[in-house]
């Protein structure tokens, strides 16, 4: 069935093209490592409630007592609001634990995927294609 196979190939091509088109139609998160996550426990220095992205700045103390500053990118605040977030859920001084996909370039930054708030409540962020980020928060 050569004809059938050709049709299959054309269809597969179209599917790949349409998926590629969709993937490229949206803003890229390719700067972040999709294979591992950081588990960052620290103090919030700033929670920037803005579009196109929210930003969380936290100071994390390592085992030697040294403080390292991280910048974590969140999704659009409109997406956050639609999934139940409010700007006042996080404030400077809060002790939080963040799960983030780290920047591939080694800089102290990442994509915020999940956070445990000062209240102990755990919240996911509505990151598009969140399932493409492999979670292993124990690998700090």
């Amino acid at each position: 069935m050569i004809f059938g196979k050709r049709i299959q190939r054309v269809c597969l091509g179209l599917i790949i093209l349409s998926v590629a088109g969709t993937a490229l139609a949206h803003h890229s998160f390719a700067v972040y490592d999709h294979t591992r996550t950081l588990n960052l426990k620290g103090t919030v220095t700033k929670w920037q409630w803005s579009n196109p992205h929210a930003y969380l700045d936290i100071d994390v103390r390592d085992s030697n007592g040294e403080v390292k500053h991280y910048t974590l990118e969140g999704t659009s605040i409109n997406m956050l609001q639609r999934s139940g977030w409010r700007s006042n859920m996080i404030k400077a001084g809060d002790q939080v634990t963040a799960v983030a996909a780290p920047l591939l370039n080694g800089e102290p930054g990442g994509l915020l995927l999940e956070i445990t708030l000062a209240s102990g409540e755990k919240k996911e962020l509505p990151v598009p294609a969140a399932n493409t980020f492999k979670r292993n928060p124990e690998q700090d």
Partner: protein
Amino acid sequence: MDSKWACSRVPRIYWLIALIACAAGFVQVSARAQQSSAAVPDITGSWERARDASIPAQPQPPLKPQYLKEWQARLQALREANAKGQPIADRVVACLPDGMPGMMSGPFPMEILQSRGQVTIIQEAYTQVRRILHDRQQNAIDDVEPGYYGHSVGHWDGGTLIVDTVGIKENVTYQNVPHSKDMHIKERISPGPNGILRDEITIEDPSILEKPWTFTLGYRRMPDYQLLEYVCEDNREYADEKGVQQIRIPR
């Protein structure tokens, strides 16, 4: 001259004919108005992009060979840059809106408002607004200053809003597909099956496309949803000297 005198000079039969003609005209106009207003669907409200079996898959743009090659090379370059973890900075990094027709493609909700002589579409992302002006001639393209949303005219044909848009800047592209300043965006907006609102978009641009490019976008109602404000503000992403997307990390 007194009007009574003037009237008395016009033979009665002419008055009768004029009266009948006026009455017939009035009946016809009001019937048409009733018919069109009865057929115009209520699409006012909030909508979000929806996939549905009634919406056909989007075909590849029928670009002329030289533009197709450039477009494919551009997509390949974007894919390779992403695979390297060094994405090419896009319009979001620069806080720029979609423009037309990208603003119709989501993923954020949009609001449609029907008012006398105009349909207004507000896209939540970047608070983008387009106005579709009813029952007027399209302007000559050279008379429309190029912009993100262009000049849109439309009319209701039964239950379908038929729209023509011109005047889109050449650097405002949809899915990286090139276009010329002569592009027309034709739309047929109508309620479809399964509660889905359809926007059948046809891009006409004979110097770039081999034939018109038609694709359909579908939307689902968001009952009680009110659009949120959206201002692009202090994005910490930026394009470096090579045009690669980076993020500012404070020290």
